[in-house]
C-alpha cells in the first residue's frame, strides 16, 4: 500500500494509485470503496452459494421420511451453519458491500470517510467467516446448536466440539467488523455529502443504510456481550448462562440483537426497492418524507419487539411484546402503499430490476402477513418452532436478501462494470426463482400448521408430512437452477454484455451522473442537487445554467419544505 505522508494533489495521487491498482495485488491491497464494495459482494455471494448448497443437501434429506443421506449430527451442523452463514456471511455483508459501493456515489463523495478502516473491516469479515467455517475441519465437527445457539445446549457440557468455540469467536469478530463498517458508513454520510445534498435530499437507499448502521451500532455490541459471556462459560466455568446462572438471559441478549438484525437485512433491501420503483415508474417517489419517517420508525420499533421470539418460554410479558410487534407492521405497510402509489399513473418499464422488485413485494407481503400471525401469542404457541416459522422467515429473508438483491444487482451491474447483464436470461431466472421459491416454501406453512417441528433431520412416515416435503424439495432444485443461470449470466456479461453507457435506466440519483464504472474518485463534476432525484430533475426541467440553480423552483420549495440549501 502506498503510504501518503502529506496530502498529495489529486492528480498525482490518482497517478500513484493507478499503478498500484493493476492485478491481484491491487485488489488485495485496495482501499477504494468501489473495489471493497465489489469484494464484499462477491465474497457474500460465494457464501450464499456455500450456504445454499448446504440447504440443498438438507432438502434432499428431507424429501422422504427417515434418514437416507446424512446422519443426524451432520444434519444438525448443516442447518446451524446454513442459518449462520446466510445471516452473518451472506445477507449482512451483501448489504455492507452494496452500501460501500453506492453510498459515496449517491451522496457525491470521492470515497468513504476512512478508506483504510474499510479495507481492515473487509478482511476482518473474511477472517471471521473462515474461523466459523473452520468448524467443519475439526474432529467433532462444526457447531450444531442452531443459528442462535441457546445455552445450556451451547455450553461445553452439551456441545464439547471445538467447532462450537470457533462459531462463538468467529461471530464475535464478524460483529466487530460490522460495527466498524457501520461507523465508517455513518461518518461518510454525515461528513462527506456534496454541497446541496441535505439530509432530506439523501436517496432512500442511503437513508435506509443510515438507519441500518445505527441499528448495527446498537445491536451488535449486545450480541458481542452475549457471545463473550458464552465463551467464558464454555472455557472458564463462567456459569452465567448455565443453570447456576440463567439460560434465559442469553435468549434476551441474543434477540435484543437478533430482531434488529432482521431489519439490518430488510431495511437496506427496502432501500433498493425504493430506488428501483421510481426509476422504472419514471416518477418521483411518492411521499419521500413518509418513507424516511417509516424507516426511522421501523428501526426504533425493532428494538422493542425482541421477546416475541420467546413467547413460549412463559417468562416474558406476552401482551407488551405482542403490541409492539403488531405496531411494527404499520410503517412496513406504509412503505408498500408508497411503492404502489409511486407506480400509480407512472409509465412502468418492466426491465429485470423491476421484475425482481415486484417479486420482492409479493413475497415480503406474505412474510409480513405471517409475521402478524406470529406476533399473536396464542397463535405463536401453536406454530412456534415449526415449519410455519421456517416458511415465514424465508419469505421475509429470501424475499429481501435474494429477490431484492437480484433486483439491485441487475440494476447496478451496469454501473459496476460498464456492461449490461443479459435481460432475457434475467427474466427466465426470475420466473424460475419465483416459482421455485414458492414451491419450496409455501407448502412449509401447511407443514408447520400440521405440527412438523423445524430442525429435524428425519420424520416418521405416518405423520402425514411426506407429500409436502417432497414438493418442497423439488422446488429447491428450481431455485438452484435459477442461481446457476445467474452465475452464467454474470460470468458471460462481465466481458460480453452490451455496453451500458453511464446511465442505461434513466436513473434519478447521483451514481448515474458519472461514468460506468466510475473513475477512481467518482466524479469529475456534479449536477446541481435540489432534491432527492437530481438527474430526474434535469430531465424534467431541461437545461440548467452552467454551475447555477436549475430553472424554476424545486419540488421541495414548491411543497414549502423547510430544508434549505447547503449541508443539512
Amino acid at each position, binding site marked *: 500500500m502506498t503510504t501518503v505522508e502529506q496530502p498529495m494533489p489529486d492528480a498525482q495521487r490518482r497517478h500513484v494509485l493507478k499503478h498500484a491498482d493493476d492485478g491481484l495485488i491491487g485488489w488485495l491491497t485496495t482501499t477504494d470503496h468501489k473495489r471493497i464494495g465489489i469484494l464484499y459482494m462477491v465474497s457474500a455471494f460465494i457464501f450464499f452459494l456455500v450456504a445454499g448448497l448446504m440447504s440443498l443437501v438438507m432438502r434432499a434429506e428431507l424429501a422422504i421420511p427417515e434418514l437416507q443421506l446424512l446422519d443426524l449430527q451432520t444434519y*444438525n451442523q448443516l442447518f446451524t451453519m446454513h442459518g449462520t452463514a446466510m445471516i452473518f456471511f451472506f445477507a449482512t455483508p451483501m448489504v455492507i458491500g452494496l452500501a460501500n459501493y453506492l453510498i459515496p456515489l449517491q451522496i457525491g463523495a470521492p470515497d468513504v470517510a476512512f478508506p483504510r478502516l474499510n479495507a481492515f473491516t473487509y478482511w476482518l469479515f473474511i477472517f471471521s467467516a473462515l474461523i466459523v467455517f473452520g468448524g467443519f475441519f475439526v474432529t467433532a465437527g462444526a457447531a450444531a446448536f442452531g443459528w442462535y445457539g441457546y445455552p445450556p445446549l451451547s455450553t461445553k457440557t452439551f456441545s464439547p466440539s471445538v467447532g462450537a468455540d470457533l462459531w462463538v469467536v468467529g461471530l464475535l469478530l464478524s460483529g466487530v467488523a460490522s460495527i466498524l463498517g457501520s461507523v465508517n458508513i455513518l461518518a461518510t454520510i454525515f461528513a462527506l455529502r456534496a454541497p446541496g445534498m441535505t439530509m432530506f435530499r439523501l436517496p432512500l437507499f442511503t437513508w435506509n443504510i443510515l438507519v441500518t448502521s445505527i441499528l448495527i451500532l446498537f445491536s451488535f455490541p449486545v450480541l458481542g456481550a452475549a457471545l463473550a459471556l458464552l465463551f467464558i462459560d464454555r472455557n472458564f466455568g463462567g456459569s452465567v448462562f448455565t443453570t447456576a446462572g440463567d439460560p434465559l438471559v442469553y435468549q434476551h441478549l441474543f434477540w435484543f440483537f437478533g430482531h434488529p438484525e432482521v431489519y439490518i437485512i430488510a431495511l437496506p433491501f427496502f432501500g433498493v426497492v425504493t430506488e428501483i420503483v421510481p426509476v422504472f415508474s419514471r416518477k418521483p417517489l411518492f411521499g419521500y418524507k413518509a418513507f424516511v419517517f417509516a424507516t426511522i420508525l421501523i428501526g426504533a420499533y425493532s428494538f422493542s419487539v425482541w421477546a416475541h421470539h420467546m413467547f413460549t418460554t412463559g417468562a416474558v410479558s406476552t401482551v407488551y411484546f405482542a403490541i409492539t410487534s403488531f405496531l411494527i407492521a404499520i410503517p412496513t405497510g406504509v412503505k408498500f402503499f408508497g411503492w404502489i402509489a409511486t407506480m400509480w399513473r407512472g409509465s412502468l418499464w418492466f426491465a429485470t430490476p423491476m421484475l425482481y422488485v415486484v417479486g420482492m413485494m409479493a413475497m415480503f407481503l406474505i412474510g409480513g402477513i405471517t409475521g402478524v400471525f406470529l406476533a399473536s*401469542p396464542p397463535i405463536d404457541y401453536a406454530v412456534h418452532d415449526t415449519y410455519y416459522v421456517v416458511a415465514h422467515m424465508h419469505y421475509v429473508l429470501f424475499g429481501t436478501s435474494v429477490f431484492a438483491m437480484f433486483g439491485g444487482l441487475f440494476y447496478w451491474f451496469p454501473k459496476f462494470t460498464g456492461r449490461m447483464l443479459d435481460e432475457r436470461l434475467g427474466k427466465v431466472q426470475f420466473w424460475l426463482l419465483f416459482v421455485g421459491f414458492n414451491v419450496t416454501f409455501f407448502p412449509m406453512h401447511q407443514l408447520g400448521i400440521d405440527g412438523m417441528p423445524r430442525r429435524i433431520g428425519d420424520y416418521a412416515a405416518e405423520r402425514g408430512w411426506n407429500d409436502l416435503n417432497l414438493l418442497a424439495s423439488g422446488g429447491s432444485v428450481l431455485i438452484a437452477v435459477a442461481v446457476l443461470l445467474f452465475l452464467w449470466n454474470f460470468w458471460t456479461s462481465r466481458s460480453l454484455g452490451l455496453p451500458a453507457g453511464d446511465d442505461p435506466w434513466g436513473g434519478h440519483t447521483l451514481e448515474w451522473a458519472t461514468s460506468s464504472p466510475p473513475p477512481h474518485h467518482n466524479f469529475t463534476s456534479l449536477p446541481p442537487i435540489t432534491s432527492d432525484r437530481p438527474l430526474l430533475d434535469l430531465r424534467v426541467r431541461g437545461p440548467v445554467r452552467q454551475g447555477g440553480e436549475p430553472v424554476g423552483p424545486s419540488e421541495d420549495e414548491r411543497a414549502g419544505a423547510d430544508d434549505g440549501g447547503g449541508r443539512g
Partner: protein
Amino acid sequence: MSHRASRVSRTVLLGALALVASGCLPVPVTEQGRDVASLYDLFMIAAAGVFVIVIGLLAWTILRYRGAPGRDAQLPAQTSAKLIFEVVWWTVPTLLVAVLAVLTIGVLNQVDARAEEPDLVVDVAGYQWGWEFTYRDSGVVVNGTAADPATIELPVDRTVAFMISSRDVVHSFSIPNFLIKRDAIPSRDNRFDVLIEDEGTYSGQCGEFCGLLHSRQVFEIRAVSPDRFDRWLADQEAATP
C-alpha cells in the same frame, strides 16, 4: 377496469380463497385449542383481505400503467405525495392491528388461564431425549426415551395442568392438536392447563432444538373417558412396585 385487469383480480381473489381454505390449523381437540383456532380464522380473514387488496392494487397498477421500455421514453405526469393518501394508509393499518391486538388479548387470557384447583396435575420433565410424566396425586410415573417413547393417558372433560421443567437443556413440550407448546427450561417451572374435549390419540414432540436426537424426542397422549382413565391410572399404580 380493463378486461385483463378484471381477469387478474378474479384470479387473485380465487387464489386467496384457496389459500384461506388450505391454511387451516389441525383439528383442535381442547377447549383452549378451539379458542386459538377461532382466533386464527379471524386472522386469516384479515390476512386474506389485506393480501387481496395489496396484490390487487399492485396487479392492477402493473397492468394499467405499463409504459414503453427504454430509458428515453416519454415521462408521465410527475405527481408526488398527497396528504390525504398518507393519512389513509397510516390510519387503516393502525386500526386493523388495533382490532387484532384486542382479539389476541382476549384469547390470550383464556389460553394462559390456570385453574385454581385442576382435576389432574401432571409433572412433565424433558431430558435428552425423552419425557417423564408424573401424575402428582397418585405418584404414577411414565417415562420414555428416543428409542421407546412414552405413551400416557389423560381424561377428557377434566382440567389438566402440566407442570413443565427440564433436566438438562431447553426443550419444549408440544402437542400439535392442542395448539400449544411451552418450553421446558432447566431451573425454571412452566405450566399450561388444558381441558381435552375429544377422545383420541395425539402425538406430541419436543418443540425446541435440544441436540442430537431432538427429532425423536416424541411421546403420545391417549385421551379417554374419565372412567377409563381412572382404571388406567389404577392399573399403573398397581404395576408400580
